[in-house]
């Protein structure tokens, strides 16, 4: 069963750019080989860490979103644990959260459409000031 996962990890800041790119490409290949589909790879860039991690005060944050099953994630995490350029990582399951947000958005969208049956301009005019 393919679920959506978000993996955020911190890469050592003192690597060269090609090395980090190579590392990220390798990770993506590992993920695809294990049967995952990479949806996006977002580099946040260098950030100051809130506390020292392995004696580093800065780190390169990367966010990887992918569709995978549990085994692929397990495999990916194992590789990240072994890789000494990756300082920290956290995997979050996002599919249920996304479903919940979708549901809320749908309810909101359907709710807005109902009042305008009687007074369209009033409902439309009221909403923007409230949300702003």
């Amino acid at each position: 069963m393919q679920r959506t996962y978000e993996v955020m990890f911190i890469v050592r800041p003192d690597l060269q750019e090609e090395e980090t790119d190579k590392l990220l490409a390798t990770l993506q290949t590992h993920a695809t080989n294990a049967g995952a589909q990479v949806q996006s790879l977002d580099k946040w860039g260098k950030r100051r860490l809130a506390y020292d991690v392995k004696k580093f005060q800065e780190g390169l944050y990367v966010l990887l979103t992918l569709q995978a099953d549990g085994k692929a994630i397990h495999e990916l995490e194992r590789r990240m644990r072994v890789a000494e350029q990756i300082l920290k990582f956290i995997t979050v399951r996002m599919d249920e959260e996304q479903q919940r947000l979708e549901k809320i958005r749908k309810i909101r969208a359907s709710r807005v459409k109902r009042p305008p049956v009687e007074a369209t301009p009033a409902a439309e005019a009221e909403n923007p000031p409230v949300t702003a």
Partner: protein
Amino acid sequence: MADETNQGSTPSGPRPPARSGDRGDRPDRGPGGRGDAGGRKFFRRKKVCKFCVEKIDDINYKDVRLLQGFVAERGKIVPRRLTGVCTPHQRRLSAAIKRARNIALLPFAAR
């Protein structure tokens, strides 16, 4: 007063149980701010949950600026009786802050 001592001895001290968290529900109970150092006799003004009002559903651990508003100076999570957040949002907020701490976006203990 028996309730006060009861809450003081439970392990989750600072957070009052959900039932007494609703302000205006028990007007006969004197001090509105439970666990307050001063023991005020009047009700604290009704604080509203920021997430309910602004309709923010996505409390993400990546959103450091949003989370920082609910973290004290020393890095501790602020109890909901001070921020006025409702229970489900406080729970999600707490989980997000803990995740952010794990990924070094927020400190565990500052200074």
